[in-house]
Each structure stands twice: as structure tokens, then as C-alpha cells.
């Protein structure tokens, strides 16, 4: 008999549904970080991310029998449940993300936050700008970016979670990246300019 750590998610879920606490703990430890990060990347709030994580696994305890292995993996199932809880939060609690932005291509004015060119070059700043830009995306584009780019899931897995076609995922991601570029462009231009200034200084030195 193989150890429980070698069991698949579906096997752990089955054991968990028969009341095995150890299986639940293993499944939680294995899957909760990605669910938590997904909720965090979607909402931008640690509190919301923790609540969603809690709700997702509580749902799994009560209604884990609705999982159908023929329709996808346990991981995709959990992402799908998490997505529903996040969207419910957005609609129920009127949760607002840091930037209220329509899905138009207008550049995000607040993203720059008026840092100095040197600060813009820092990686942390760039990551922060990307995070803000992602959070400012409309939900249907944000979830695709989060799943495909940040969770690094395949188009197929993402389509499974979102319940849409792979082509839809592909086109939404293309559109989302266009929106992100539009929001980040002022920073990128500043980055390019500052890089050019550094190179020029070196040339003249």
C-alpha cells in the first residue's frame, strides 16, 4: 500500500469524503497555496483570499461528492469553486480593486505614481506596477491573466476552469495583454528613456 503522500488528489478527496482527516490535511496543504494566490491575485486583498480559501475547502468538505473526475482534475475543480467565490465577493460585497478602470484601452494614469526614473528601474517597482495593472483589468480578462500568466496553467486547464473554449481563452489573453501594455506603457517608455539615458551617459563617459 503506497503512502498517502503518493496518492492522487482524487484519491485523497475520496478518502477525505469518508472522514479521513489526514487526507484532508494533505489535500489542503497540496492545493491551498495556489487557491490562495489565485484569490489574492484576483482580489488584491489578503483577507478576501483567506476567506475564499476557507470557503473553497469548506465547500469541498460538504459537497466534495459533486466532483466528477471525468470532467477534470481536482485542481481545476478547486479553481472553479474559488473563481465562483471570488466573483460572488465582487458582486456581493462590492469589493473594489485599487483602480477602477473600464476595459477600454486608456492608459492607467495612476500607475506611474510619480517615481523617479531610477526607482522605476527597480524590479520591485515593476512588479508592483504589473500587479496594479492586473488588478485594474476587468474580471473576465483578469482571471485569464491570473490563470495563464501567474498560475501558469495551460490554455486547456484555464478553459476547463472558466467553462469556455480554448479559443476564447486565447483571445481573452491576447486582449488582456493589450490592455496591460496600454496601462503600463507610460512606465515602460520611462524605463526605456531612463535606460537610454544611462547608456548615453556611459557613451559620453
Amino acid at each position, binding site marked *: 500500500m503506497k503512502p498517502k503522500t503518493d496518492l492522487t488528489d482524487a484519491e485523497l478527496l475520496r478518502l477525505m*469524503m469518508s472522514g479521513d482527516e489526514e487526507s484532508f490535511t494533505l489535500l489542503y496543504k497540496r492545493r*491551498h497555496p495556489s487557491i490562495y494566490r489565485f484569490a*489574492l491575485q484576483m482580489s488584491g486583498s489578503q483577507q478576501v483570499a483567506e476567506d475564499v480559501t476557507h470557503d473553497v475547502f469548506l465547500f469541498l468538505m*460538504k459537497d466534495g461528492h459533486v466532483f466528477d473526475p471525468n470532467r477534470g482534475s481536482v485542481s481545476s475543480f478547486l479553481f472553479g469553486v474559488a473563481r465562483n467565490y471570488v466573483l460572488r465577493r465582487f458582486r456581493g460585497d462590492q469589493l473594489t480593486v485599487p483602480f477602477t478602470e473600464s476595459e477600454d484601452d486608456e492608459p492607467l494614469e495612476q500607475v506611474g505614481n510619480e517615481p523617479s526614473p531610477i526607482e522605476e528601474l527597480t524590479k520591485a517597482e515593476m512588479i508592483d506596477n*504589473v500587479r496594479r495593472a492586473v488588478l485594474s483589468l476587468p474580471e473576465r480578462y483578469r482571471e485569464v491573466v491570473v490563470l495563464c500568466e501567474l498560475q501558469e496553467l495551460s490554455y486547456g486547464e484555464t478553459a476547463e476552469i472558466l467553462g469556455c473554449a480554448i479559443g476564447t481563452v486565447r483571445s481573452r489573453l491576447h486582449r488582456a495583454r493589450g490592455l496591460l501594455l496600454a496601462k503600463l506603457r507610460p512606465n515602460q517608455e520611462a524605463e526605456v528613456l531612463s535606460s537610454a539615458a544611462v547608456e548615453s551617459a556611459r557613451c559620453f563617459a
Partner: protein
Amino acid sequence: MNCQKFESLATELARGEMMDVDVLADARVHQAACSTCSSRLRDEEVLTRGLHSLAIEMNSLQASPSVEERLLASFRQPGVVVPLAPVRNYRPYWLTAVAAILLIVFGLVAVVWRGSNKPKNDLVGRQPAVEAPKQIKTDNDEKNVATSQDNAVNSPKQSKLKPNRNPRELPAKAARVNKPENAVANHASNEVATDFLPLGYLNPASLQDGGQIVRVEVPRTTMASFGFPVNMDRYNERVKADVLLGIDGVPHAIRFVQEKRSQ
């Protein structure tokens, strides 16, 4: 490759996705020739790096231990985890067992019921055989014969041909001798029947020694072969018929029986 096509591929190129070698080569050629598309691809690559960095930075994040503690507390509460799957697995077996028990009970009841009715059936089986020639010659005779034929119908010998095995209806038949023409009263008060129709060349000699009438079900289309109108909407239904068999077992005549409509 033009700029529009390159634009559609920019995301895939920046993400380093697999694509056709020829398409990739065309895209690289176009990128080298078009500064706008080259800039666009550079932007996409910067974005990809930014997203990748964000993913790496957040990769170590996870929920606080308090979430797990709350969940474990919930897990330990009775009734939170609903083990429906095992119940579903056992359910078919349980149902099968109940079905088997019911089947046995009904089987025993049927055996007991048949045993209690056996003497009556024996009496019925000893009723005199049919005077077949009379039935076919005159209407009055037919009516009388029909009454006596019913007794033969109840003979156990014809059980596999769906005979009417209810002997309790016998006393009611005596009152049904006088019926309108072409509506011969049958053993049951709720049935009417046609005249007996000869099957082939009738040899009355073979009916001298008696015969039997057996109740059968035939396709409704059989009626058409005897010239009766048939509703084609119901052509695939079956209809009851009494077949007159000679002592030699050869069928000599047939009549069609129908349930009398309640008024």
C-alpha cells in the same frame, strides 16, 4: 507576413509558445524589417517578464495557519463531511436485495393462489367438448356453442395460448345466450365476438367427434385478411381470437373477440 498577422502572433511569440517553424521564421523576418512590430514584440516580452516576476514573487505566499485550523475544526464537527459516495455505492445492492425479497414473496403468493384454485380448474377442464359443426351452421347454434366453447377455453391444456382461466365467470354465461346477430356473447359479459370464419376447406367430418376452442392473440392485420376493416393506426396491436380446432388438432375456424365497450 504583414503587421496584422504579426500582431496576432505577438502574444505567442513573447510567451515563447510552440508554433509552426515556418510561421516563426516568417515572424522573425517581419520583426527584423518592421520597427513598429519589433517594438510591439519588445513590449510584449517586457510584459511577459513582468508577469513572470510577479508570479515568482507571489509563489511563496499561502494562507495563514489560522485558515487551516478553522477548517480542521470544521472537519471534526459531526455532519460537516457528508460521506455520500459510500452510501451511493451500497444503494444498488440494498435495492437489489429488497427487490429479490419482494420477488420471492410474490412468487410464493402466486403459488399458494394457484394451489387454492386448482380444484375449480379441474372441474372446468372436465366440461364437455364443443359440438363444433353446429357452431358454424346457424347463428342460434353458434350462440349456444359459444357458451359451451367457453368451458373448453378454460381447459388447462391451452394455458400457454393465453386461455381465460377465470372460472368464476361461468355462471354469468347462461344469461348471455340471446345476443344480437354477429355479436355472439362470450364467456365474459364484457366481450363480443364475430361469427366463426372457416379456415380453408372445412371438413365437418373431422368435427364429428368434437373439438376444442383455444383463445389466442393474433396481429390485428390478421383481421384484414378476413375482410374486416382495420384501423391502420393500430395495425401493430394484437387482437384476441378463438380458434376452433378439430380433434386432429387442425384449425377449422376462427372468430375475433373484442372487449365490449362500457356504456
